[in-house]
């Protein structure tokens, strides 16, 4: 099953309320996905030449300070860190690829959730309400957010297998459905495009595919259109970039989706009930996205 929600603010005056508007949307989708939940939130842009890396370690007493110190000494870099539950956001001017490798090599259980100037990804096993509370999602500000509540069908219930997936700077993807050609596509991306994968999850392959298309200069809108040719299976996707937001359903529209738009925001929910708490929803344009049509806002769309 799974639930997806997304909120893209068109009115910057609402940015302080993003988390407060978004959290009830995520929690409403609990019965579509009680196994785990995840959020990608775009906010608090890092200063020029800095990248934010969001990382996870399951042990509450993991020595993140030592990791930050080794970043400082290894790269002679400036490092700011901010703990949030089982996650940490590390902002650094060290080269992003090398910094990510150093962080991941610090302990086998460390995982990098996202990298970019604005994106932070938080995900955990458990009920969406508990996950939102752990990360104090309700108090977060930002420009847009994408969330997922997972009922696992295709790979194990783990933190790493939770959505959203990010395989490119500031890119995130959430997925409701299951892909049927992800193994061949993973091989193709690994062998011909030199990409690497952290999980056996189908959505990670789709995220890598989209990141690869973006790297080749495609816009988010066009990268999602490319999915229609190369991905096989069931999917409703919601994707975010630093300043963009897009939605795509497979050509037979297997998985549910509702969009709502007002002058202030664009909101996505697997079901309308996820959107009912949003301000002005009574007057919003509410519609079901057509199958095989890409909807996009912001960015290079």
């Amino acid at each position: 099953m799974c639930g997806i929600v997304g909120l893209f603010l068109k009115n910057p005056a609402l940015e302080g309320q993003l988390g407060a508007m978004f959290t009830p949307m995520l929690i409403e989708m609990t019965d579509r996905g009680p196994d785990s939940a995840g959020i990608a939130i775009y906010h608090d842009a890092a200063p020029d030449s800095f990248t934010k890396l969001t990382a996870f370690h399951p042990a509450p007493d993991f020595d993140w300070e030592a990791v930050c110190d080794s970043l400082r000494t290894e790269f002679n870099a400036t490092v700011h860190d901010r703990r949030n539950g089982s996650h940490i956001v590390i902002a650094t001017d060290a080269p992003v690829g090398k910094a990510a490798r150093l962080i991941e090599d610090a302990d086998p259980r460390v995982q990098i959730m996202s990298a970019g100037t604005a994106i932070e990804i938080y995900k955990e096993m458990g009920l969406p309400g508990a996950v939102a509370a752990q990360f104090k999602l309700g108090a977060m500000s930002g420009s847009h957010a994408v969330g997922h509540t997972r009922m696992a069908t295709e790979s194990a219930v783990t933190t790493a297998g939770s959505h959203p997936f990010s395989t490119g700077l500031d890119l995130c993807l959430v997925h409701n459905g299951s892909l049927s050609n992800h193994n061949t596509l993973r091989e193709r991306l690994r062998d011909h495009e030199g990409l690497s994968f952290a999980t056996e999850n189908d959505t990670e392959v789709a995220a890598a595919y989209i990141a690869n298309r973006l790297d080749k200069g495609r816009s988010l809108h066009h990268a999602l259109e490319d999915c229609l040719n190369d991905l096989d299976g069931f999917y409703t996707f919601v994707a975010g970039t630093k300043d963009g937001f897009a939605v795509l359903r497979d050509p037979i529209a297997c998985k549910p989706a509702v969009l709502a738009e007002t002058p202030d925001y664009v909101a996505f929910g697997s079901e309308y009930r996820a959107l009912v708490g949003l301000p002005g929803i009574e007057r919003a344009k509410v519609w079901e996205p057509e199958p095989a049509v890409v909807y996009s806002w912001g960015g290079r769309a």
Partner: protein
Amino acid sequence: MAGGANVTVLDLEKEDLRAVNQRLQGADAGGGPFRVLHPRGAHALACGLTAGTEVEIEGHTGYYCAGMNEAARVTVKGNAGVGVAENMMSGEVWVTGDASQSAAATAHGGLLVVEGNTAARCGISLKGGDIVVKGNVGHMSMFLAQAGNLVVLGDAGESLGDSIYEARIYVRGKVASLGADCIEKDMREEHRADLRALLERAGCADADVGAFRRYGSARELYHFKSENLDSY
């Protein structure tokens, strides 16, 4: 809706869904009318009504609204989620906005009117109900429909009437494509009379019956034949 003074107002912001459904289901024949406020996309609202109750729902509903309806007249003033009026037996369900997928799935009787559009699989496995959609219908509408009528004043999506049995489809606009074993058929006077009656019941008596085309089963795939394998 009948006289304001007698209307019972049920508010889903104040009462829980099960309590509201029990009030609606407990109404005697001719009971009500009811006005339901703040449906907030709730699932299975106004399901299983078995009396001639009149229910008006002010807002968008979730899955299976007015499912299994018998005799009641349910109006959704907004959009309806997946499976509105699914397995309806009789009565009338009216949606002023759009309806999601599988509207009136397996309905045995009654009338569903959608003022806007419906998504995919409208009337899937229809067993005798009538559907009038004033906008467009999505792909695979009337898939496996066995009996009943679908009237579309707008356009129909891909694979209309795939594997249809003895149900009838009338479309005024364009049909993206017909599904397996679905063909266009002649409009005879009996069809024009049926269509005229349906349009009248749906409040569009002024629509020109002559502008519609009729689609139904070619009856080639009723029984499995190996030479038809490519058609499935």
